[in-house]
């Protein structure tokens, strides 16, 4: 039954085209960035990695208003609750599906983006590792935010305010991994720790928010 829910989530994001939105945004930023800072390859290579992190974080935000609110409006969440699904399980399935539907294409889009930014192979490798670790955390944050704001008009914009402060540790340690002089290993451990924390609280926080939607 969980597999059916997971398949539905993926099918919906594919069918609505929403799966391309974060990717298009990510590539757009990577394309525009060299125009803004100039074509100097050294500057691009030094700052491009951090920019890619910011773009990845913001692109996780884009689909927030369609992760939970449409299911709430259509009564799907009520029907699942009647059938005895725990709110935490529904949240966990949504997180897993968002991770698959957002994280995997993002990692693929990283290749053309790194070419546009002129990143070195080593930087690309660190970037890919960091983003792969952060993806569950970003998906977890997005679903949490979506569940918290599902009842609000214009939830997407408020969503940004809720999500961004929580994502700052992941951003700091993720971008810190790219720092050539700093201890990259230490940043990696801290990134894993902060990502793990967000991933672990996600289903419970989002589940509680789903429960509150019914009251």
């Amino acid at each position, binding site marked *: 039954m969980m597999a*059916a829910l997971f398949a539905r989530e993926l099918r*919906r994001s594919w069918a609505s085209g929403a799966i391309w939105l974060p990717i298009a945004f990510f590539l757009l930023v990577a394309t525009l960035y060299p125009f803004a800072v100039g074509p100097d390859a050294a500057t691009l290579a030094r700052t491009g990695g951090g920019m890619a992190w910011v773009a990845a974080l913001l692109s996780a935000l884009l689909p927030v208003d369609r992760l939970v609110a449409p299911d709430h409006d*259509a*009564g799907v969440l*009520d029907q*699942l609750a*009647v059938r005895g699904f725990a709110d935490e399980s529904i949240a966990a399935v949504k997180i897993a599906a968002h991770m698959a539907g957002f994280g995997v294409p993002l990692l693929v889009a990283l290749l053309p983006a790194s070419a546009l930014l002129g990143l070195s192979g080593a930087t690309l490798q660190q970037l890919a590792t960091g983003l792969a670790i952060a993806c569950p955390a970003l998906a977890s944050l997005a679903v949490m935010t979506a569940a918290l704001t599902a009842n609000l008009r214009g939830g997407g914009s408020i969503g940004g305010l809720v999500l961004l402060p929580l994502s700052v540790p992941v951003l700091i340690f993720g971008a810190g991994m790219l720092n050539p002089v700093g201890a990259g290993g230490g940043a990696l451990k801290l990134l894993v720790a902060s990502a793990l924390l967000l991933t672990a609280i996600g289903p419970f926080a989002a589940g509680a928010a789903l429960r509150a939607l*019914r009251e």
Partner: protein
Amino acid sequence: MSGGAAALIAFEAVACVRGGRTLFDDISFALASGEALWVRGANGVGKSSLLRLAAGLLRPIAGTVTRRARHAIADENPALDRELTLRNALAFWAQIDGRGLGDVDDALAALGIERLADVPVRILSTGQRRRAGLARLITSGAVIWLLDEPANGLDPAAQTLLEAAIAAHRAHGGTVILASHQPVDLPGAQQLTLAGAGA
């Protein structure tokens, strides 16, 4: 008529408070196999809240709600994915409920919408969408049916089909709670009129 110990669903001194306002309190009833309850009352007296309490979607502020069989609810939201065809959208819930495509087609036929099976949900009319929601409830195979204003938007022919489906369900041992301000043909049903305790 009283269900007693064999009740499939029972309310015992249930009270409901919404937004700081008491909608009703001390509501008690019991429904056994084959019985039905018609919840009546004006808009806003808590008919929908009573059904959500019965479905377990709301918790009573006082009293207890007991269910001894699987239940399903049909309210104003069909909960069907708009981009899918009607049959596929119903098949999703059938899969969750452990039912087959044959059950979906039977439910569509029972409500006279079998020719809409391959039409996307998003282009259904209001009445057709309401029937689709009822088809989801019939497909589920649940014993306790909770119907919130099921006749809203239905034409007379569809209402006759709905009444026939309810009668068949009761004849097979099911039970029905129906909230409606419109008259619905429910032979031998208990009646509960909510007057609005806080008003």
